[in-house]
């Protein structure tokens, strides 16, 4: 029997119910505790990321947060709509509605781009096929 199996076996008979009855056993009580770093290894000074193009922030912030996501930067018409949305306070319904509209526009943009790609590939493919047929005929 491994240590792990022994440990599990030893605890099988322990009552599950009420094992965290004491408030001291509850990691989230009180929800807001006295100030201390979340983990002992948390960096004392938070270094700022370099600014990136196409990344925006909400109106209420004076500058970017130190750390941010860099996935899918703003582009196209959906990007313009999102910029307008983020220039509006997030307490306004307009902010959220504009983001939802931008999401749908973003999907349309993607579909149109895909269609254009197909339309570009099909004539190129057809021309290549004609040339190949002509070559082998000769």
């Amino acid at each position, binding site marked *: 029997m491994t240590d*792990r199996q022994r*440990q599990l076996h030893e605890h099988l008979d322990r009552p599950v119910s*009420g094992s965290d009855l004491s408030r001291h056993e*509850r990691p989230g009580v009180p929800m807001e505790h006295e100030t201390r*770093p*979340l983990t002992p290894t948390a960096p004392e000074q938070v270094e700022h990321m370099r600014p990136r193009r196409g990344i*925006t922030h909400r109106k209420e912030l004076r500058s970017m947060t130190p750390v941010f996501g860099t996935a899918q930067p703003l582009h196209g018409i959906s990007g313009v709509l999102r910029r307008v*949305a983020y220039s509006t306070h997030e307490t306004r319904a307009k*902010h*959220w509605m504009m983001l939802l509209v931008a999401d749908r526009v973003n999907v349309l943009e993607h579909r149109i781009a895909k269609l254009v790609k197909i339309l570009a590939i099909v004539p190129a493919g057809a021309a290549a096929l004609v040339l190949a047929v002509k070559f082998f005929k000769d």
Partner: protein
Amino acid sequence: MRALSYFGPNKIKVVRKPDPRIEHSNDAILRVTRSAICGSDLHLLHGLVPDTRVGCTFGHEFTGTVEEIGPSVKNLRRGDRVVVPFNISCGTCFYCSRGLSANCENTNPNSDVASGVFGYSHTTGGYDGGQAEYVRVPFADVGPMKIPDDMEEEEVLFLSDILPTGYQAAEMGEIKGGETVVVFGCGPVGLFAMKSAWLLGAGRVIAVDHVDYRLEFAGRYAGVETVNFRRVPDIVTWLKDQFEGRGPDVAIDAVGMEAEGSKLHRVLGMGFMQAGVPVAINWAIQTVRKGGNVSIIGVYGPPWNLVDIGTAMNKGITVRMNQCNVRRYMPHLLKHIREGRIDAKGIITHRFPLSAAPKAYQTFSDKKDGCVKCVLTPAA
């Protein structure tokens, strides 16, 4: 790398994307070993979360192996196996230093409603998620927790979100011993809320849902009484009657914005006239006894919902809620898993390779084939 990507409501594909890079000195890059699909990922899939951009990779419940670390990372080494909280938290800001890591103010430039979250739209910071082969993890010295050598990834995977979330839901119910608890929703978070209610000393726990196989699973897995709200004339009255007409001491909403149970709310919620369907909140408020506690852990979006606040006020209810401050709970709940009090892995019903992620989403979303929890294995 291969990664799940979003292309519009109900349209996801696994595509090739550039590998993530170190972008901040405290970043780490992980090779994802397990990644779960969360119920809240379905809100993204269904296009309900504002600023979900085409190309976004979902996934906020994952384990991985450290591949690369930034120059200031002290806590991790290449090859370490870790489980990562879904919140991205700096560890030292006003909120983090008070234990509220879900409210970190240094990681989400786009909204004040939450901290940064992996793979959860630009409303939570614009970070790609872990349903991919690799993922960038900011604040690698704060969030990730090393997996003990004698434990498997799947044993600890749910420490990333749903297990702490369920535990916090029960904890916010202020159970002191012997209380009666009703949990709305028998999804993974609901199941862990039920288990946690027992750990905290609940006297009686009833689970509410409308999906029979999930009710059956809850009865078996969490040892609770169950009721299908579609099989009783009025669920609020039925529940109150179970507790001498007063209702339970604690009611937990573990459902969130896509609840069933009211055609009016469904039309308004899914038609963007309110931010989701607040049926479970309203039932919780109406069911709980006067002076009781309502705990909300189901996800809702801004800006507004039709919540029965008048009833809550007049009944003197305490309503508590928050996204889960995951990092605080990880060591404690790891102990429960190690000691056999919680079989977290026991809720996994389906495993899929990353390439089959769209099928996994469909299975989970349609509640097909007895699905409770899907796990993706990117290396398979």
